[in-house]
């Protein structure tokens, strides 16, 4: 019984008083998949907000900034019913969906040298109104893609860079 084969349903639809054992079984399987951060359906609140998201954003899951974003932007806002409709209206994409594979975890130090480059530092430290607002990290497909998966490298850089951003502005 692999959780991979299971099609999760929102746990909200499950009534705990329901005597059917199949329901209980289904609930426990559902919980398993929801507690696994590597599964696509890790965020039931987003699933409820945007029922069509799994078709449109199977891909965008890989962006794994969600937690770091939380750390830096330190305010919590209640979103009302209309607010949720507005968020859905703005875009069907769900880039905050967190997806971080075990492999990414294990490649902790890969790509860190980028953060030591003068280009990165210049871009990070430049004051307001500078001309150099854009940093482009480009990778040669013949090398980068085959042996170090490009997206892992990219997301590592982003992740590390979030930490640096936080250190740079500790009072915010």
């Amino acid at each position, binding site marked *: 019984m692999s959780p991979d084969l299971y099609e999760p349903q929102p746990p909200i639809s499950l009534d705990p008083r329901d005597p059917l054992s199949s329901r209980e079984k289904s609930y426990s399987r559902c919980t398993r998949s929801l507690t696994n951060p590597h599964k696509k359906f890790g965020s039931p609140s987003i699933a409820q907000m945007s029922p069509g998201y799994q078709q449109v*954003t*199977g*891909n*965008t899951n890989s*962006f794994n*900034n969600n937690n770091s974003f*939380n750390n*830096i*932007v*330190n*305010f919590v*806002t209640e*979103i009302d019913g*209309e*607010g949720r409709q*507005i*968020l859905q*209206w*703005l*875009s069907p*994409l*769900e*880039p*905050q969906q967190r997806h971080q594979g075990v*492999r990414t975890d294990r*490649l902790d130090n*890969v*790509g860190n*040298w*980028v953060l030591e480059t003068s*280009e990165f530092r210049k*871009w990070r430290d430049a004051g*307001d*109104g500078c*001309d*150099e*607002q*854009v*940093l*482009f*990290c*480009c*990778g*040669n*497909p013949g*090398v*980068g893609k085959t*042996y*170090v998966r*490009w*997206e892992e490298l*990219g*997301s590592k850089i*982003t992740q590390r*860079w*979030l930490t640096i*951003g*936080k250190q740079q*502005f500790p009072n*915010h």
Partner: protein
Amino acid sequence: MGKDIAIVGLYCDFHAQQEQSTTNILGAILKQLASRGGIPENTREAFQNAKKEFGGRGLLLPDMVDMLKKTITSLPRLFICIDALDECTQKHRRELLESLRQIVRGSPGTRVFLTGRPHIDDEIVECFSKVLRIHLSPTPGDIKSYLEMRLDDDPIPKAMDKELRADIMRIIPEKISEM
């Protein structure tokens, strides 16, 4: 939300080219800001006006750029990260870069972080005269870490012996450095 740093990002994917239109990508950025900092008033108004129209009008790119520009003026530091920009369609990429140019121009505290294959460099330069660039290629250390990780994950460890492992660890980094 005056004193906060906001970091928003999106990962482009070749398999989602249709869904990842420019409007949807920028919308996802605004959505991230709004879901943390609250729905901006002008966005709420735009939504209410769109709802009044027959069938509810969808968003157009200029409206989206305008909403985003208004929202980010209150942020002293905004980092917009777009990964794998080369995986968008060329049309979407051009539109996106042009929109980012408009957004960044009016917001000195905004920084844009892009990743992609080198061939999109010309398109980026067309929109931004000064671009800082880092050419990525894995360092020998990166390659070794990656190889070790893959070898440790080997589903059939019996098929591996020390000698083969040593050969892999030696030959693959050598070949890569020759590329």
